[in-house]
């Protein structure tokens, strides 16, 4: 079996699908953040696979920037979760509906 770029893209799609499923099905904001991390990493894998396929490192640069963005997303998300728990709000995204009212 010749492992080409299509196998890496397939694995990336499967990981992205699992992350998407997690975002939809879970209620704890922490696990939703973890699932978003999973999706960002799946996108990174596709970027790096196609960087190798085209033989240039632009995709790797983009993946590096995605890592920085993911780190800032985690900081803000965890700050929100800590602020929620400090207000003694239940950590359940189904209860955070103030903006919908």
């Amino acid at each position: 079996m010749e492992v080409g770029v299509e196998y890496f893209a397939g694995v990336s799609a499967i990981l992205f699908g699992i992350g998407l499923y997690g975002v939809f099905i879970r209620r704890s904001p922490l696990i939703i953040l973890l699932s978003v991390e999973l999706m960002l990493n799946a996108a990174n894998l596709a970027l790096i696979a196609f960087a190798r396929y085209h033989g240039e490192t632009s995709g790797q640069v983009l993946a590096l920037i995605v890592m920085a963005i993911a780190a800032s997303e985690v900081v803000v998300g965890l700050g929100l979760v800590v602020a929620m728990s400090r207000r003694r709000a239940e950590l359940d995204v189904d209860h955070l509906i103030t903006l919908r009212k």
Partner: protein
Amino acid sequence: MTYEVVFCVATAVAIASALGVVLSGNPFRSALWLIMNLVSLATFYLLLNADFLAAAQVIVYAGAVMIMFLFVIAYLGGSADEPARDTPLWQLAASLLAGGAMVAEVIVAIASHTFDAGPQVGANFGGPENVSVPLFGTYLLGFEVASVVLLVAAVGGVILGARRPAPREPGAEEPFKPRHPQPAPPRELQTAVMEAETLITPQTRSDR
């Protein structure tokens, strides 16, 4: 041959640990599964000649970011657990449909296209020097914007996590005593500052 074996093992670990992240009920276990997933992705990066990114993935992601996650989960304790409630069947079906549609879409797209083996690359294809030249050249603006986003996120994290002080009563003692006492500001200025403080500090907060 070794390449294929490593790929298959890394794929199995990556998919199993991703399922562990999504299906595990305990957030701490989810985070540990995600660390395993990130390490198996670093293996993929090594297979794709992205040596520098594999190192960055393990150090920055599996190291720093996930440690921060674990700290917050440990800080929250039991309140971080998943709310115990049954998921409605239609939500389960819709989530499976959305995730499955994503996977099917990409698999149909890559199956309808034939990929050649790609160009041969040298041993230092993904080394730091080959990554840094476009990073600090062609994509310098993106690099700078990413650094500004990181700064904004750091400031935002501090603001979100900081405890605001309780509003002071007029005439209450100063929170910080100056080492060299200075003449007190006029009374009107003091009351004006305290009124302004009550405007920016929500009165409803009871935590200190």
